[in-house]
């Protein structure tokens, strides 16, 4: 009973607060009128005594402050803008692009700082022989590894550094056919005499045929230009043979499967000198039987 009366009283208080009249509310509960009326009168007397309507000016001023703060919070701060995923991705892409431009696009532009001398033609009695070989790694997974080399540069030192550039006579070769000490001559010609410190090759394509499946796959390159830093000398009274050693490594794992990469092998690359004699012959370019390598 008390609980029911409390509910009715509560409803009437809500109705009076909304502006309904006391009589209307009492009329809806005639059986409780005697008990309700004095309580509701006490309520209205209390509420009326402290009735207060804030000024329109105060309310307007408060509204302006609230909306200003609301708008201020809608504007992202500098750090919020920085950490937004879209901005992060755009920034990361910009950094990658910048690095890529620096590494690839700008590098040829930087090279002219070191002058380049192009050797126009090969010569079978030239003072320099450029050869390639392979080092044992994952090469045994392949029946063939066809490599295409576009250009070769040698860094000539002295009073002024210069690049010595030539285009290999043999640009395509099968690296899998050059196991162990076997080499293949790609070029012989005359280069300026003196000291050299670096050899760079530009590789345009590498494909391999897997022994196990017969599948032809592309072998990745860490860069289109591979280099080794090995000093060697080209003298007037000898023929210098330089062997650029390449190897194929498997960078994959058990989960993702095999992934092959062609890398220069500086430890196995190097030069050797053969004195020039009347019987001097050049190595057989097609059979891969060059000079033995001298370890640097």
């Amino acid at each position: 009973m008390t609980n029911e009366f409390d509910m009715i009283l509560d409803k009437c208080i809500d109705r009076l607060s909304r502006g309904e009249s006391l009589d209307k509310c009492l009329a809806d509960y005639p059986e409780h009128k005697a008990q309700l009326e004095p309580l509701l009168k006490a309520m209205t007397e209390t509420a009326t005594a402290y009735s207060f309507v804030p000024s329109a000016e105060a309310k307007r001023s408060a509204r302006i402050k609230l909306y200003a703060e609301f708008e201020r919070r809608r504007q992202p701060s500098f750090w919020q803008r920085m950490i937004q995923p879209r901005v992060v991705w755009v920034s990361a892409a910009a950094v990658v692009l910048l690095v890529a431009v620096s590494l690839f696009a700008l590098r040829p532009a930087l090279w002219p700082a070191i002058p380049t001398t192009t050797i126009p033609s090969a010569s079978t009695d030239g003072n320099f022989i450029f050869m390639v070989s392979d080092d044992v790694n994952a090469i045994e997974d392949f029946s063939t590894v066809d490599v295409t080399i576009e250009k070769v540069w040698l860094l000539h030192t002295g009073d002024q550094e210069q690049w010595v550039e030539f285009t290999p006579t043999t640009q395509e070769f099968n690296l899998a056919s050059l196991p162990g000490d076997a080499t293949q001559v790609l070029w012989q010609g005359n280069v300026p005499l003196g000291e050299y410190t670096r050899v760079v090759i530009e590789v345009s394509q590498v494909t391999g045929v897997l022994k196990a499946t017969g599948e032809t796959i592309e072998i990745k390159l860490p860069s289109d230009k591979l280099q080794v830093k090995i000093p060697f000398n080209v003298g007037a009274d000898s023929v210098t043979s330089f062997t650029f050693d390449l190897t194929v490594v498997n960078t994959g794992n058990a989960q993702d499967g095999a992934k092959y990469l062609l890398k220069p092998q500086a430890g196995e690359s190097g030069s050797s000198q053969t004195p020039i004699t009347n019987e001097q012959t050049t190595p057989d370019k097609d059979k891969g039987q060059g000079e033995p390598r001298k370890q640097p």
Partner: protein
Amino acid sequence: MASKVPRNTNKEIRDNEARLVALYEEYYDKIARYVYIHIGDKSESEDIASEVFLKALKSIKTYRDTGLPMQAWLYKIAHNLVVDHLRKVSRIKTVPIETVEIIDNQDPFNDVNRKLEMEKVGAAMIQLTEEQQEVLRLRFFGGLTSKEAADILNKSDGAVREMQRAALEKLRQLLNVNRQ
């Protein structure tokens, strides 16, 4: 096993900010009245009501943790600001009648009657328990429902309705409102 309340997402925070701003028109006057019944100073009440909304907006990230309806949460903030204010001015928690401003100051007779009425009601109010006073403030001046008042006071709806009836019974006696 303890459960961890997930953090508000940015969208949730923005939605709550928009809800808060939408409540302003309806609740500014009510909150100002609720503050006024505590401190008895119209100008201060208006300023505190304004501060309630600003403070709520700045603390919106913590809103969900309270588990309260948003309007009830606003009254909690208002209550805390009232307590801070009273602490600052070292006033007791009843309306200082002598300093109350009278709305209709064009009519000295009405002014006197109004002051007397406020004095009478104020004297009656302080005879109630602190919880009963707060129920009446939230219901009559703050314009909250008994459910919303219950949320703020951590009581059941029924307990609030019971306190409300008991408070009105006592006020009726003190104000000498006779039964018909």
